């Protein structure tokens, strides 16, 4: 591209811009042609071997059960609905994993920098152990080793209406009766009031310097208003209580061990990486910033929150995004321990029953691509928001 246009030769072929354009067009044509060739070749070969194609199978009854479904699902539902069920399971475990991993990571990252010798060493042991053991092994550990220590359903650990055994944690399931709308309205109202309170407190602090415990106060506001709403509408909640039956505990809400094992493994594993990212971020903030904050008379907790963390975040966010993406993709390992996420249900059972590898793997790639891009876009937006404002 370094060839310079010689002024005397006016042929458009010698113009760098035109030539670049021609190359782009040729490239595009080649890509389109190769793509078309591969696609038509694929279709011909599939037809040749008598393998069915297309997405028609999504409307066929699936016939297989799914352990965890947050929307109604039975064996009589379609492959399409099974796909949605699996999609929800993947998204839920990814989002919960991201939140939990972030909390664990921040706490452990701060703990590694703690002045307390024991705390710092314990955090080091946590990080070095968990990030150096393969995730799949950790999932097997949580699922098989920890599960084995829990009692059989017949000898469940019972606490009030809560049951704990090898099959999961069973709790009362709230069933909302008529009039629950009042409670929801009260809850939303209380949240709006809290936001208003926080905004007011902040403004007043900026103006007068007087501090008000707005966060604690808003928690109180939410609790009181919601409780009042409950009382006014006559507590419109009934509970479906778990009960012992012949084989299992039935009724109530159940948190299956598969879910717990995947969530714990994902969040502690990724948390170890996040801890290192947080530690690196904090160490990247010049020590002079802390000294300056102290000389202004800020407490240590305020120094961390107002001076160090906001600056550290700029270093933390980009690698943190990668960890979030890893976590979302690693959730696919849940298939190994019976957590019915996308890979298990779509690339496992559906693919095997229908034999349509290309469609099913394509669907999964599309979902993971979309999920990862969504996380990326959100984190890039957040990164931009937190980046240094040049004034």
């Amino acid at each position, binding site marked *: 591209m370094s060839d310079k246009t010689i002024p005397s030769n006016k042929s458009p072929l010698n113009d760098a811009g035109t030539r670049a354009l021609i*190359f782009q067009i040729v*490239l595009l044509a080649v890509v389109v042609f190769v793509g078309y060739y591969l696609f038509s070749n694929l279709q011909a070969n599939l037809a040749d*071997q008598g393998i069915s194609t297309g997405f028609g199978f999504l409307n066929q009854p699936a016939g297989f059960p799914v352990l965890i479904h947050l929307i109604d699902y039975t064996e009589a539902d379609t492959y399409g609905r099974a796909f949605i069920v699996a999609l929800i399971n993947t998204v839920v475990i990814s989002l919960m994993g991201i939140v939990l991993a972030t909390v664990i990571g921040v706490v452990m990252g701060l703990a590694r920098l703690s002045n307390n010798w024991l705390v710092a060493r314990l955090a080091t042991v946590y990080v070095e152990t968990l990030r150096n053991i393969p995730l799949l092994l950790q999932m097997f550990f949580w699922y098989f080793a920890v599960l084995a220590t829990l009692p059989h359903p017949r000898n469940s650990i019972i606490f009030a209406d809560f049951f704990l055994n090898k099959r999961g944690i069973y709790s009362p399931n709230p069933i909302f009766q008529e009039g629950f709308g009042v409670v929801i309205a009260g809850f939303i109202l209380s949240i709006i009031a809290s936001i208003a309170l926080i905004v007011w407190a902040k403004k007043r602090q900026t103006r007068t310097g007087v501090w008000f415990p707005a966060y604690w106060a808003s928690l109180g506001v939410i609790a009181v208003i919601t409780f009042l709403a409950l009382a006014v509408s006559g507590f419109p909640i009934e509970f479906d209580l778990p009960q012992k039956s012949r084989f*299992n505990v039935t009724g109530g809400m159940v948190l299956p061990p598969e879910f717990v094992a995947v969530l714990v493994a994902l969040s502690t594993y990724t948390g170890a990486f996040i801890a290192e990212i947080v530690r690196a971020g904090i160490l990247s903030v010049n020590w002079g910033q802390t000294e300056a904050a102290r000389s202004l008379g800020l407490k240590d907790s305020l120094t961390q929150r107002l001076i160090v963390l906001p600056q550290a975040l700029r270093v933390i966010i980009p690698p943190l995004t990668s960890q979030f993406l890893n976590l979302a993709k690693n959730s696919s390992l849940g298939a190994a*321990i*019976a957590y019915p996420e996308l890979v298990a249900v779509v*690339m*496992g059972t559906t693919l*095997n029953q229908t034999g349509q590898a290309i469609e099913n793997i394509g669907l999964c790639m599309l979902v993971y691509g979309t999920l990862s891009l969504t996380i990326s876009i959100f984190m890039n937006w957040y990164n931009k928001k937190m980046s240094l404002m040049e004034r």
Partner: protein
Amino acid sequence: MKSNVGKLLSTAAIAATLSTAANAATLDDVKSKGFIQCGVSQGVPGFSNADSEGNWTGIDVDACRAAAAAVFGDAQKVKFTPLSAKERFTALQSGEIDVLARNTTWTYTRDSSLGLDFTAVNFYDGQGFMARKDLGVESALDLDGATVCTEQGTTTELNMADFFRKHKLSYVPVVVQKADEALAAYASGRCDVFTTDKSGLAAHRSKLANPADHMILPETISKEPLGPVVRHGDNQWKDIVTWAMFVQVNAEEMGITSDNVSKIKSETNDPGIARLLGKEGDMGAQLGLPADWAYNVIAQVGNYGEVFERNVGPSTPVGLPRGINNLWTEGGVMYAPPVR
């Protein structure tokens, strides 16, 4: 920039070559590479299981060995690819393996829409349930509300659902990716019952810490004819794998074993046996195989009865009775078309 375009073109050319599925005759491929690539399970004792030295044994392993004996005259010319239930069909469709012998059930959907052809049945099976004896369950119909462990990507998953739906019983399904982990989940108490084909139950029970603590419930809830599978559309290869199985059944019927096959071949006056063992006629040429291919199969792998006894018979840890898998002349359903 020019060199970039060049790179892209060559990459595209490679991709195009790769996407051209090998649709050539499998027999030619197998002959040119010198061995049969055989897809087997990741360890089902009696069917396909590797010992500590990596030697594979089992009824499915012998199906591949029989095909190798037929093609090469050497039953050892087989390489094995252990596959999970959910990987197996894709591995065969994509040409990664030549034969799939992985206790695979012959069903309508698999035969019609997966691009596969089933050859012969080498084991007639049916799905059942295994439970702990102290659970106090007598019959599968007592299982209302039970938690059931099974392996993913099998007919088992669907049969289980059908069984519970048909009898209006509730259940909790725990579907694990690999059979070993499904069994581990059952062993750890995650499930009340473990379900798979009955032969598999016996095989899996032999792997548990105290096999005697577990019982196989009497009900058989499905038909599971198991057999080797090949790609759809390669009839010659399908015939070879099919007939490698059929000659073993015919040999048992004729009383030919791996021990006496040499003697019988040299002494026989029976034209049927002479045809089978390649002494008369051109039975091999019709399949593109050596004339003595059936002789090699019987001499190196044995007849069907020998294969059964050696791998899953009463004297083995799996310990299955011959039952329905006996010859048709002995009250079973093993029946092979005549070699003629």
